[in-house]
């Protein structure tokens, strides 16, 4: 081996390569054409960094490191391969929480040992620790809510004050830990317990409809925590990757909150995403039901049909049937487009993933800005399990909680067909004025079953 070669040089060089691969990978993931290769690049970067870390100077405990990697890796591999596309959001929340927990664990090892040198490093370890721990327990709650394990949103008066008190107490203990490099283990323990509690109490009151924003926020927070612990460990790969994810995730969170016309603070502290309390606005008119056979004829002879999927489609696993229906229509010469609202489903782009799973080419799928002008020329707007994202009161009713949210202009189509399970209001609890319009007809039933009936109806037209 030449004299200039050393393990630490190899490690630094590999981490450099990893950082480049991560950034190139994320860049490639931001275009549909290159997205597939992007994850391969990032994966290669992860492989390089993980392997070279075994050469870290002074490493021991390999008999613990290898089994831990094996158990964690195999469990995640198995669950990741098995999970249905519909349940992707909660799996991402779960894996994200694990990352946050790992960042907190790094902080815990450093702080229990009293190994941090200096106030700056100590403070960074504490900061990364609290953020990682909040992301860990918060993501687990988000997972539980989306998985249906936690059905209720716990809310009581003074909740925000309690959260602030827990945060203040955690920060106070954290300051004591950072100030004394050899703080007693009891204080370190108290600090982490409070941080974990904070993640739980912060997330419990947030309703299901806001979960996309929350998961994205915790994703950004985990990135930040990883970056901070990277400073503590003097690890450039962690600093760069963590910070890139932290800022990218923050931007993504803002984009999502903006798409819902809500500030991030509003999502975290107002708690409307679940019940919304009073159903505002007086809706006049009546709900007019329609039979599947009539809808089939209407669509078969249409020149343009725009499909608007929502979470109801995901719940019913109706995406395959919907694509089958769309293909039948396309064969008849009907122009079919899919219109996706940025916050339809449980995550931004959730609907795109489901449609892609069913085989819908992405060039048939349009987002809000691209498609909104086209509703006026559409003969049929087919709403499948979507609600708030097509509610026209967002344009008109200043007293409505969703006032100002950009919506899909489905009401501008000549005919609006709404496939819906029952007569209840949407996630936000707001009555949907679209359902009462003169050009709207309701097709009641499970989305998958209704789509099956529509397929039969279109086929019957011949």
């Amino acid at each position, binding site marked *: 081996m030449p004299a200039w070669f050393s393990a630490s040089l190899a490690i630094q060089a590999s981490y450099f390569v990893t950082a480049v691969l991560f950034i190139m990978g994320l860049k490639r993931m931001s275009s549909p054409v290159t*997205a597939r290769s992007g*994850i391969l690049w990032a994966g290669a970067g992860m492989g390089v960094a993980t392997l070279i870390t075994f050469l870290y100077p002074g490493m021991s405990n390999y008999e613990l490191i290898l089994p831990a990697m094996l158990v964690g890796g195999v469990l995640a591999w198995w669950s*990741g391969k098995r999970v249905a596309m519909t349940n992707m959001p909660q799996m991402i929340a779960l894996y994200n929480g694990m990352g946050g*927990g790992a960042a907190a664990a790094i902080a815990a090892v450093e702080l*229990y040992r009293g190994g941090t040198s200096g106030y700056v490093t100590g403070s960074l370890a504490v900061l990364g620790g609290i953020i990682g721990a909040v992301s860990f327990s918060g993501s687990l709650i988000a997972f539980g809510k989306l998985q249906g394990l936690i059905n209720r949103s716990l809310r009581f008066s003074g909740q925000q004050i309690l959260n602030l008190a827990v945060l203040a107490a955690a920060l106070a203990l954290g300051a004591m830990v950072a100030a004394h490099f050899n703080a007693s283990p009891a204080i370190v323990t108290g600090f982490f317990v409070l941080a974990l509690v904070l993640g739980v109490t912060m997330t419990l009151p947030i309703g299901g409809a806001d979960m996309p924003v929350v998961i994205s926020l915790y994703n950004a927070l985990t990135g930040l925590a990883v970056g901070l612990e990277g400073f503590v460990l003097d690890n450039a790969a962690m600093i760069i*990757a963590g910070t890139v994810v932290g800022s990218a995730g923050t931007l993504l969170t803002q984009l999502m909150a903006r798409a819902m016309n809500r500030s991030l603070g509003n999502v975290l502290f107002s708690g409307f995403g679940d019940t919304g309390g009073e159903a505002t606005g007086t809706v006049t008119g009546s709900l007019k039901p329609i039979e599947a056979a009539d809808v089939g004829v209407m669509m078969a002879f249409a020149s343009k049909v725009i499909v608007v999927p929502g979470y109801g489609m995901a719940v019913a696993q109706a995406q395959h049937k919907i694509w089958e229906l769309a293909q039948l229509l396309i064969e008849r010469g009907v122009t079919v487009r899919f219109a996706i609202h940025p916050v339809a489903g449980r995550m931004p782009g959730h609907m795109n993933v489901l449609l892609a799973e069913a085989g819908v080419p992405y060039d048939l799928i349009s987002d809000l800005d691209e498609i909104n002008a086209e509703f006026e020329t559409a003969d049929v707007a087919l709403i499948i399990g979507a609600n708030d994202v097509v509610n026209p009161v967002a344009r008109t009713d200043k007293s409505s909680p969703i006032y100002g949210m950009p919506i899909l202009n489905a009401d501008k189509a000549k005919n609006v067909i709404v496939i819906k399970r029952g007569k209840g209001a949407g996630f936000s609890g707001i009555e949907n004025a679209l359902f009462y319009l003169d050009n709207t007809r309701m097709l009641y039933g499970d989305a998958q079953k209704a789509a099956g009936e529509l397929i039969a109806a279109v086929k019957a037209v011949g």
Partner: protein
Amino acid sequence: MTGMVALYIFMLAAFTGYEVISRVPVILHTPLMSGSNFVHGIVLVGAMVALGSATTPLEKAIGFVGVLLAAGNAVGGYVVTERMLEMFKSSGQRKAKGTH
């Protein structure tokens, strides 16, 4: 690494993350969130170093959990991102494969 250099790295990395994601079409938001979730799985190398230098049983136990969680983040993040992106194909690609 001196503090100032670290601060510069932090600042540049923050801008990079912002720029990389700012032109992302909505259809890729979920895969990209998943992809960035995978990228912070790099916490695995930190967890390995932390466990590798742990001495007391408490440190070892926490370090063990840390490595386990980090490996889950990295592997799980990769698997689900890859699965999602594998499905993104244009009309042309589908026709070419004869699956329309």
